[in-house]
């Protein structure tokens, strides 16, 4: 039973990270129908920023939660700035271009950001300090670590806040309006450019949170971590139904659990086979993903 719980919580942690990144994919897709392939790089930049800030703050003797929170805050702001700029530079000029153009622009952005970090920082793997402290009440628990608990709680909290934000705030309503019909929203006086910018900022902030948490959990980063995490998160978003916020979280969790249980009970050789096999299987029966709406409804 302990083994099952370990795998369950391991999958939950992994799934939470996928979910945090998938939220950014799904929000951007929901609004401008762009698959932002550079999103994984924002996650990576968040992790790098946190590492730099944490290393600098550690020199001043700061430790514990304040260090984590400060590092994460700077990472969030910095990544959000990247997300904002990225949209302005790479996607806004192509707003009315054929759909393939922003996609290519996104791939270019991804390659650019990877190589930028490679040159500006290092190609080597770097050690990432364990910023999340062990809780004393978790000592008795063998199947879950404190970092895993923090990751899961943060994801749940972020998802809840995001859902409330989109449901009840003015900007949230504007987002939904833009997602439904950009031209109509514009005619009704909604500042579409601002709404899109806010979407990128929120998505990037969530990716940065994911970057800080998972790096602190596994203890190492390099310039390439965003690529694989991005692919997996994208898979999660598609699995759950791209464009749907609860779908992204559900997709992330299902992907995380599938991988964890496939490794635990079958073989890690087939981890990806199971994950992507499941994706194909679900898409056969629900082409729009688990919670996605069929696009034909959009006129």
């Amino acid at each position, binding site marked *: 039973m302990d083994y099952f719980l370990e*795998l369950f919580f391991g999958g939950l942690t992994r799934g939470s990270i996928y979910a945090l990144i998938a939220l950014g994919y799904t929000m951007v897709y929901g609004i401008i129908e762009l698959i932002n392939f550079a999103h994984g790089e924002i996650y990576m930049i968040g992790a790098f920023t946190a590492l730099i800030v944490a290393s600098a703050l550690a020199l001043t003797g700061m430790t514990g939660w304040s260090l984590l929170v400060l590092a994460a805050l700077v990472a969030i702001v910095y990544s959000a700035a990247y997300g904002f700029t990225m949209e302005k530079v790479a996607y806004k000029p192509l707003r009315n271009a054929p759909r393939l153009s922003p996609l290519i622009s996104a791939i270019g952005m991804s390659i650019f950001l990877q190589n930028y970090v490679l040159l500006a920082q290092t190609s080597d793997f770097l*050690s990432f300090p364990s910023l999340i402290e062990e809780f004393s009440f978790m000592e008795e628990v063998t199947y879950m670590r404190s970092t895993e608990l923090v990751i899961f709680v943060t994801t749940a909290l972020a998802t809840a806040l995001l859902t409330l934000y989109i449901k009840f705030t003015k900007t949230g309503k504007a987002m939904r309006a833009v997602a439904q019909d950009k031209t109509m929203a514009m005619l009704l006086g909604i500042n579409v450019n601002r709404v899109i910018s806010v979407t990128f900022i929120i998505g990037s902030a969530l990716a940065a949170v994911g970057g800080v948490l998972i790096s602190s959990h596994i203890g*190492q980063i390099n310039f390439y971590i965003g690529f*694989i995490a991005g692919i*997996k998160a994208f898979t999660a978003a598609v699995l759950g139904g791209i464009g749907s916020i609860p779908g992204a979280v559900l997709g992330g969790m299902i992907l995380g659990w599938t991988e*964890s249980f496939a*490794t635990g009970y079958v073989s*890690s050789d087939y981890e990806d086979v199971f994950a992507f096999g499941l994706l194909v299987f679900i898409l056969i029966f629900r082409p729009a993903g688990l919670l996605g709406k069929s696009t034909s409804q959009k006129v």
Partner: protein
Amino acid sequence: MAADTIKLGVAGAHSGDLASYGIPSANAAKLVVDDINAKGGILGKKVEILREDDQCKPEVAANVAAKLVADKANVVVGHICSGATKAALNSYREAKLITLSPSATNVELTKGGDYPNFFRTISPDDAQALLQVDFALNKLKVKRVAVIHDKGDYGKGLAEFAKGFFEQKGIKPVLFEGITPGAVDYSAIVMKIKASKAELVLYGGYHPEAAKIVMGMRNKKMKTLFISDDGVKDETFIKVAGKNAEGVYATGPIDTTKNPRAIAAIEQHRKVFGSDPGAFYLNAYAGTLCLLQAIEKAKSTDYAAVSKALRTNWFETPLGKISFDKNGDAKGIGFAVYQVRNGKYVEVK
């Protein structure tokens, strides 16, 4: 004149896209032979080099072998590539011609037992796995092992050799699995290792994944031993894994950079050819020395006498003190086991 020389065949890729693997060996043979001839040769005869180019192609290598046999070579240094070496060895075996390769690593060339005339001064592909398994069973005395690899050519190859060696000793690994390099985390495989109650993890692959697995195990308060390969014997591994790296074992090449003979041999190359030597230079240098010294010790170029001399004597070479086992693999070269102690890899004696 011809009857009064000892003929040393030097075969390998001297042209084509793999020439950079063969030319350093030919250079090494030339330098060794020049040295020996300057001192009066061996058994009162000068040594003469017969240099042949096989381009690392098996079909060319077979022709080269036939030519060297026809030219009455006494011993051969070569060939360079495993495939070409195998193609050439049949002719040499029939002609009872001792052949020593500085670079062919294919396991079967020696351990297959088909070529008693074949020797080499490079470790076969399975050398690290053999050393790791030997160390695990005899020094660490473990009974339950998990073999993990990264599904890559290098990592998986090594893991498969290790699994084979464990099974030969009657130990069936409790886990044999590949992981996906670069995955977000490895908690599932770490838990699987924990559940398997393995005492030792043998990992074939590179340091980023090894660091994640080791840190995952230590975070779970697992004391499982960890041994890996020269992909992990890297300073970055220690830097990334930090204090969790302590106690990790890894095999890596024996350090020859401080061997005075190696320093002298490299210096000699710089002086004569005006450049730093390339791949397998020291292996070929050592190999040529061994062959010629063996002829001197055997007091003849007779096949049986020279192969006995190669197997029974220890030779001082740039690779260290070496001899040859019954298969023809060199003893005393190759890999050693290192352990992380106080943030540094230290050789385990």
